[in-house]
């Protein structure tokens, strides 16, 4: 590759970041704020002390798990928008376990992880069944089930799992200490959560790269018709993809209850499911880029509340940064593909069509 081509490539890679900065700068100027002060606040809010850095790790765990899961469904060409619901299902299954079983931490914590995996997997399977056998697009199936899961959470919090002194929006009573994931020192980060999320991402990377199942999923995702002709069972493999993605999302939900909130709260998924869609899109569906993107998103997440404290700006600027960069990334890629894409033949045009 020539130096010139390298520069062009670097420019294309950095363009989305530049465009996002320009856009947020304009928004900040319109709001009458100093953009550089705002960026500085986000940075200092995210990195000023070890506790904050641990907070970044806390935010990274669900994003890594959900993104790892979504890499699997994206590989199979599925838009699993239902990750949010799958996360909730994992949290519910874990809460159910904690509510119904009294046991020492050594028993209940491993079981809570399993419960999260199973809950999410079942919810994912349900999405998959609706998609493959019901003929409903997975986006609608997933979205619908997200609302169902969320409504179910509210019902359980205000019904069967109501605290004795009355239900509130702050959720169930705290879990018994035996169901608390141990934390690192005085921080809010859990070593178990961090390890599990790393294992999940590395595992997914390995599966997609080096296993027959991963290869089959990629074949289905790129051309399900040809994959089927090669003798690959598309339905079964798609369902498996939904199950694996759901399990990882469910684990994320489970860890939010046992390691972060130590109870079930109404918004237990916290939008991480949707955010991880952006993560996966921004990493170009490549596992190796996910940690970096997740780190960036989590840092913005942890740093942006400071805007509110110091500059009386709404912390949603963080969200604008995250979404803006994804939009510009997709736009730049779209333009690039348009320039380079060869013209496609239409049916009836000639020798290839039938």
């Amino acid at each position, binding site marked *: 590759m020539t130096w010139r081509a390298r520069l062009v490539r670097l420019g294309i890679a950095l363009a989305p970041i530049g465009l996002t900065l320009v856009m947020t700068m304009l928004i900040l100027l319109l709001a009458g704020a100093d953009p550089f002060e705002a960026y500085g606040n986000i940075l200092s809010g995210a990195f000023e002390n070890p506790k904050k850095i641990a907070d970044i790790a806390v935010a990274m765990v669900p994003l890594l798990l959900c993104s790892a899961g979504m890499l699997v469904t994206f590989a199979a060409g599925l838009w699993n928008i239902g990750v949010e619901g799958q996360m909730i299902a994992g949290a519910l299954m874990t809460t159910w376990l904690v509510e119904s079983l009294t046991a020492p931490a050594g028993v209940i914590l491993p079981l809570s992880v399993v419960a999260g995996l199973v809950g999410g997997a079942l919810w994912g399977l349900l999405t998959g069944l609706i998609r493959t056998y019901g003929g409903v697009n997975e986006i609608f199936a997933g979205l619908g089930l997200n609302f169902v899961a969320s409504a179910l959470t509210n019902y359980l919090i205000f019904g069967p799992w109501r605290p004795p002194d009355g239900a509130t929006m702050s959720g169930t009573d705290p879990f018994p200490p035996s169901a608390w994931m141990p934390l690192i020192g005085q921080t809010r980060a859990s070593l178990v959560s961090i390890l599990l999320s790393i294992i999940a991402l590395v595992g997914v990377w390995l599966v997609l790269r*080096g296993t027959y199942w991963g*290869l*089959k999923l*990629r074949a289905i995702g*790129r*051309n399900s018709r*040809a994959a089927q002709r090669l003798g690959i069972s598309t339905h079964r493999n798609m369902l498996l993809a939904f199950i694996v993605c759901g399990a990882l999302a469910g684990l994320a939900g489970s860890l939010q209850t046992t390691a972060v909130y130590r109870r079930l709260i109404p918004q237990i998924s916290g939008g991480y499911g949707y955010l991880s869609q952006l993560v996966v899109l921004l990493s170009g569906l490549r596992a190796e880029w996910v940690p970096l993107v997740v780190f960036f998103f989590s840092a913005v997440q942890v740093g942006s509340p400071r805007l509110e404290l110091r500059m009386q700006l709404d912390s949603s600027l963080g969200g604008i940064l995250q979404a803006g960069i994804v939009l510009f990334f997709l736009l730049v890629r779209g333009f690039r593909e348009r320039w380079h894409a060869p013209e496609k033949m239409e049916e009836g*045009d000639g020798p*290839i069509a*039938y």
Partner: protein
Amino acid sequence: MKIELEDIYKYFGPVRANDGISLTIESGVIQGLLGENGAGKTTLMKILSGYQPADRGTILLDGRPVHFRSPADAIAAGIGMLHQDPLDVPAFSALENLALGSPGGPFLNRARARRTLEALCQRFGFALDPDAPVSSLTVGERQQLEMVRLLALGVRVIILDEPTTGISAPQKALLFQALRQLSAEGLAVIFVSHKLDEVRELCSRVTVLRQGKVTGHLEAPFATDDMVSLMFGQVLGKYTRRPIPLGGVILQIEDLAVRSHRLEVRGIHLTVRAGEVIGLAGLEGSGQRLLMLACAGLQKPHGGRIILNGQDVTGQPYPTFLRQGVAFVPAARLEEGLVPGLTLREHFALAGNTRGFFIRWEEAEARTAQMIADFNIIGRPDTPVEALSGGNQQRALLALLPENLRLLILEHPTRGLDIASSRWIWHRLLERREEGTAILFTSTDLEELVEYSDRLVVFSGGKMSAPLDASRVTVEELGYLIGGRGL
């Protein structure tokens, strides 16, 4: 209006859809454009009507060069095209569809559209209900509506692409009458077709295309022989091949009925023996593909039975057919056969033994290297399949086939390939006969059908003929049969 197309080129990747076409069309003439599917007719007409730009070449209207950026540009210049599949808005009424494309202010002028529609319908004897939703109209009626719409927009040149597909006989008569009337009024009519009889009946002049090039211009009255030889090329000597003794019955088809949304073929009977090659002849879309899909287990037949290796497999799922040793090689290589984005190595890994968890890359690599050498594939193990040329994609598809097949079904196995590649591919295919594989294939190349088949069946008019001995059929005779004319 006089239209001159000069030296039009249009390539789609390696496919030369239009390869230097020149053509002049005078007004008041019904100009036929004849050629097999894939000859480049539709591409040329889409260029003329602004749907796609040419790579090279000029269009002159009354001697002035024009550049159309969109169909609207072409319509403004007086050129309108009726597509094979009507491009209207199905949920709207006929009237709304007409009003939709009309120039004018931001509001629909229903009253004026209604007057126009009624006047034009009366002129041509069309019976269109202005308020019926388009989705309730037949293909013929939608075509009439589209024609009325173009005429209301004031086109002086009207292009019809295979307009008689899917319409009834009375509608066809009405259409032809309307076209004659239009040409008498001084419009230029371009009639795109591959049906000899229709061209003979309607056109005063015909231009024949073959493989993206003009092979000749003819004036009425047309001799069928001339049209056939221009369409299908010169007759070459037969390829001689070693006869092999046929084995037992592999495939038995009994009273099979297959159908798609626009076609039904019933009463198909065929028995195929090991080592036999059966050519399925006919114009494209006459039912050959439906039969192939049924035999491959990819589409359930509508009636009748398919017996493979003595076992009734009618209605069984595709994996059952795979286990019985059936393989299907589609014409749309990158749509149905290969997975764009995956490399050759990944394809061979998938096509091999996929038991176990981790991919045995050394095994896949060895197999890929061997197949690349064996099948002369110009490519490396890490080449993504979409980067291969058409001929190499076809070689890769054949290399991916399992060994010891019982029935190999091929759709246009050499389409788009040069003669050397075609011969090579047939050499490899015929080798498989010695393992007792039976072959079923379609082609639009009559020479290929006659040369490589043991027996031929012809699809025409919703029927499949009884098998013919290929060694006793000439290319010309086959051309007549395909055109729906008896010997």
